[in-house]
């Protein structure tokens, strides 16, 4: 049995599969990055040129120099960072309450939060738009932050709930007996142990807030646009400006990438190891 599992053919087949999957994942990214360095002549050439072309910075110069790239970047950063922060703050508190407080229907609430998540954001776009128009608060970044926080909360709560459940309640009791106030229990005992949970929730929340398109398109104006919406601006009446879209896309990818690398460093398996039992 184990011989079969480790036979060279099997191993090779494994790696071939993995390589194919990796290529499938990486190819679109390569297309994006390479296209962003091509001029229109190369892009619209009859057959696609994969690797060998003369790179140009024209697309980048155009985006950064002529558009309001800096403004959109600031918008995106504000919206993503603030909504991620709010989601983690509120989600963490909710999750903690669900994990610890005893009240009727606790389990139902915990599971129901995930149900809310099942609704695709696109379905919410029209009602959200109507609401915003009715309240006359469109073109405001705060509105976008509000919606993203609301959209991301269920998932964050559900995820953090699981993490809080793993922390033995005795740790909190020990801290209480040691003389810690509720805030001290939270910041000095719980938070260090919840790092991984918050990092995972943060990565997902930030990524969704950063990339979200439909709500951003509907709820923002000329000055409050986020980067994904701005990128769509290159779909013009006279054609699609592929080079510029791809250059924009390449730039958009960088911040969440950095954020993910930073956040992933906080994810440590077995954080609570050694807390209880032998």
């Amino acid at each position, binding site marked *: 049995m184990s011989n079969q599992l480790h036979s060279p053919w099997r191993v090779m087949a494994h790696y071939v599969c993995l390589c194919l999957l990796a290529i499938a994942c990486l190819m679109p990214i390569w297309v994006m990055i390479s296209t962003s360095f091509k001029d229109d002549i190369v892009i619209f050439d009859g057959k696609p040129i994969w690797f060998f072309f003369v790179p140009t910075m024209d697309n980048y110069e155009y985006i950064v120099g002529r558009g309001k790239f800096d403004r959109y970047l600031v918008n995106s950063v504000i919206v993503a960072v603030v909504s991620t922060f709010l989601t983690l703050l509120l989600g963490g508190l909710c999750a903690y309450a669900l994990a610890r407080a005893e009240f009727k229907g606790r389990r139902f609430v915990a599971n129901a939060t995930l149900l809310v998540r099942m609704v695709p954001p696109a379905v919410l776009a029209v009602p959200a738009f109507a609401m915003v128009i009715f309240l006359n608060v469109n073109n405001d970044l705060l509105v976008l932050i509000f919606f993203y926080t609301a959209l991301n909360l269920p998932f964050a709560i559900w995820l953090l709930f699981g993490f809080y459940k793993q922390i033995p309640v005795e740790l909190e009791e020990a801290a*209480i007996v*040691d003389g810690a106030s509720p805030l001290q229990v939270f910041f000095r005992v719980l938070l260090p142990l919840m790092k991984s949970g918050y990092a995972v929730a943060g990565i997902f929340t930030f990524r969704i807030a950063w990339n979200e398109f439909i709500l951003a398109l509907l709820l923002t104006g000329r000055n409050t646009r986020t980067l994904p919406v701005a990128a769509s601006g290159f779909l013009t009446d006279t054609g699609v400006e592929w080079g510029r879209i791809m250059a924009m896309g390449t730039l958009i990818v960088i911040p969440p990438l950095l954020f993910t690398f930073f956040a992933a460093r906080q994810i440590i398996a077995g*954080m609570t190891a050694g807390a209880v039992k032998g």
Partner: protein
Amino acid sequence: MPGVELIDVAKSFGSTEVIPKLNLSIDEGEFAVIVGPSGCGKSTTLRMICGLEPVTSGSIFIKDRNVTKAAPKARDIAMVFQSYALYPHMDVAGNMSFALRLAGRPKEEIKRRVDHAAQLLELTDYLHRKPRDLSGGQRQRVAMGRSIVRDAYCFLFDEPLSNLDAKLRSSMRTELALLHKQLERTMVYVTHDQIEAMTMADRIVIMDQGEIQQVGTPREVYTSPRNRFVAGFIGSPSMNFLDAQLQDERGELVVRGDGFRLPIPDRLQQQVQNTTVTECTVGLRPEHFFARNDGSGNLAALKLNVDVAEYIGSSQFLAAHLGEQAVTATVDVGPDAEPMQSGEYYFDTNRLYLFDRRTGMAL
């Protein structure tokens, strides 16, 4: 002077009453062990003393101060949890000093106290290790160290040894007893293990179904159990209980049951004469059976049908029948004896116990 005092303390979870009304006084400097089967309310009692569980009614005094409504940190107590509850993100020194750091004590004092506790518990070499890099016994010691550095008035232990293997448990038992001697603090220790209770306690508090069954020294609860529960709980292997009748046979008081007839010992004569009870339960401890009549004590012969004889070194453990009723006995026959057979055995009737079959109270 009572160190910890519980007056009419009751506890209910919702409509479920866990502890009806409990009165308990633990002397200052005493090592009190609360023992009982799981679910008897012993941990809840400890958590109420600690302040982690609010009382439903009644009051709790620590060092003559009413702390019923006080937060745990205002009670001058330290607690060792069953699961140790070490902070996994802090090293041993960090775990032990956490309470002192929270209290804002000066650095030198913290270091001095942690070093002292570490020395006491032989943890000096591990001060900078994380809990996950420690063995079960070491973690247990860190948990104790964390409470020792506090220099609290009263120490509470919630089954601290139950996660250790048998060998470590017995050595930790000794260490704990030694620690109590050195610290001279009031200690309240909860366990379901009667051996732990017997070996460590100054006084044992035996609980069942939320009520205290008996409070006394280990010797008292072993030699004069107040009721059938205590008699069965204390002692290992546990006492045999046999249905019997009290009878007066021409002036001689005897207890008679299926397959046996035993005379009432002098110590119980008075009680038996005064009682109206005839239906009783006889309690026979396994260790008071003998294989030979060496003429000492008041030995009475009993015919045992031995089902299994287990060899445990110098003695043998017998699973047997006396008449129709199952009994266990440990007989000291030396390490070279053949497996014991059915036949005449002897019981020291001075050590016989009688209980009212209806109420379970000792006669």
